C-alpha cells in the first residue's frame, strides 16, 4: 500500500483525539459534502486573548474527511484566531502528507471549509474559502 492511507490517517479516523461537541462554545458551524454525504460539525471555545482555547469536531464520512478534521483541530488549538483565518488547502495537505485528486480533495477540505465559515461567521461554507 502506498502512502495514501498512511497509518496516521487510519489511526486518526479510528481513534480521533478531538471528536466531540463543546458546550458551551463561542463558535459553532456544520456543513456537508453533497457529493458523498460527509458531515462535519465544529465547536470552539475562544480565549480572552483571541486564541483557540479548545475545539472539537463531530460528524461522519470517509476516513479522509474525518481524519482531516481530527488533524485540523489538533493543529489549531492554542493558535490565534487570526492565524486560523489564513489557513488554506496547503495546510490540510501538509497535515495529511499525501496527494489527493480533485474529488477526494473535497473530502479533505470539508473540515477546513466548516472551520473557516464558523470563524468568519458566514452563513454558508463555500469552496472559495479554501482555495
Amino acid at each position, binding site marked *: *500500500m*502506498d502512502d*495514501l492511507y498512511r497509518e496516521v490517517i*487510519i489511526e486518526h479516523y479510528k481513534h480521533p483525539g478531538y471528536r466531540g461537541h463543546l458546550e458551551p462554545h463561542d463558535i459553532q458551524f456544520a456543513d456537508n459534502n453533497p457529493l*458523498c454525504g460527509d458531515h462535519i460539525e465544529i465547536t470552539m471555545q475562544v480565549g480572552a486573548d483571541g486564541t483557540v482555547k479548545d475545539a472539537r469536531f463531530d460528524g461522519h464520512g470517509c*476516513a479522509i474527511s474525518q481524519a482531516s478534521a481530527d488533524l485540523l483541530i489538533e493543529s489549531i488549538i492554542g493558535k490565534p484566531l487570526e492565524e486560523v483565518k489564513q489557513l488554506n488547502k496547503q495546510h490540510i495537505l501538509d497535515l495529511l502528507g499525501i496527494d489527493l485528486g480533485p474529488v477526494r480533495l473535497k473530502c479533505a477540505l470539508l473540515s477546513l471549509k466548516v472551520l473557516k465559515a464558523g470563524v468568519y461567521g458566514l452563513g454558508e461554507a463555500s469552496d472559495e474559502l479554501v482555495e
Partner: protein
Amino acid sequence: MTLNVQQIRSDFPILQRETSKGIRLVYLDSTATSQKPLPVIEAMNAYYRRSNANIHRGVHTLAEEATALYEEAREKIARFINAPSARQVIYTRNTTESINLVAYAWARANLKAGDLVVLTEMEHHSNLVPWQMLQAERGIELDFIPVTEAGLLDLDAYQALLARTPKLVAFTHMSNVLGTINPAAEIIRLAHEAGAVTLVDAAQSVPHLKVDVQALDADFLAFSAHKMCGPTGIGALYGKADLLEAMPPFLGGGDMIKEVKLRSFRPNSLPHKFEAGTPAIAEAVGFGAAVDYLSSVGMDAIASHEHEITAYALERLEEIPGVKVFGPEAQYKGGVAAFTLDGIHPHDVAQILDKDGIAVRAGHHCAQPLHEKFGIPATSRASFYLYNTKDEVDLLVDGIYKVKKMFG
C-alpha cells in the same frame, strides 16, 4: 454463445494500461461510462483525417461524404433498436438531453397544471430533475412507483397510480444502482391502457440488452453512446413518428429549419427539426461504429456473458462478512453490484481499491432518492461489460478483503 473475452479485451487499448507502475487496470465502472474499442476510435480518427466537413447543405466531396457518414450512422442506430425509420432517431448529447427534449418540447406542449407524471423511486437524476423543473414551472404533479426491499418496482402500486390517469409514465429500463431490469413492455402496455404516453430511460438497457422499440411499443426511448462503446458527446432519442411530428421544435437555429424570414421560420422535417446547429458529426460516426461493434459481438452473447459474471460476483461478494449488495437476485439484474461494507465509507473502499488498479465508483450514482430510501448516503459500485472477466471479480474480492484488513 460464450464470448471470446481475451479477443474482445485486445480491442480496447485502455484495458492494456497500468494505473500506476506495474498495476494493470481492472475497469469495473462501465455503468458510468464504457471503454471504447479500436474500431470506434479509428472511425472518428478517419473521419477527422479524411472526411471532416459540415453537413447537409454542402455540395463538395467532403460535405457529401460527411453527410453520408452522419446519416448512415443514424440508419445503423435505428436498426440496432429496431426503429421503423431512421428519421425517428434524433441525435442529442446524451440520455439527459434526450429526456429534457421530451420535457421541453413534448411535455410543455401537452401537459398542464394538475396533470400527473408517474416516475419511479429508482430513477437517475436525469429522469427526475427535468420533471421537477416542470412541476415548479407548470404545476404538474409527480408520483412514484415505489421500490420494494428486494429492489423491484411495486407493480401493484403502479396499477393504483394508473387509476389516477397519468399523462406520462417515465421510467428506467434498468437501474444503474440496483441493476434491476424492469418489465418495460408490461409497464408500457399498462400505461397505454390507461391512456398515458411512455418514456423509457434506456441509458443502461440499450448498451447491455437487445432492445426493440417496436416490441416494447415505447413512445420515447433515450440512450447515450458513451455507455455503449461509443464516444462522449452524443446520445439519441427515439420517438414514435406521430408524436415527434406533432411536437414543436426544441432548440432553434441552423439545420432545423426549412425556411427562415426575419420574423418567422418553418421547421424542417424529422429528424432535422430537433437537431439545431452543427451536430456532433464525428461522434455520430463513432456511435455508428459502436453499434456495429456491439452487433458483431452479438447483444445476446453480451447479455449472457454479463449475466454469468454478475451471478458470480454476487456469490463472491456476499460471502464477504460485512458486505451488503443492493438490488434483486442475479436473475432480475444487469451487470451492476452496488454494495456497502460495514463501518467503511464507500469513498475509502473505492480509493483503496484504486491503489490496486481496480476502478469502482463510490457515491450516490446520481440516484440520491434511491439511496435515501435504503437509508444510506452512498454505495460502492462495481459494474461489468463485455470485456470483464471472472478473474477481475476475484481481484475485486481480494481488494475488499484488503480494505477490511486496513480498517480492521
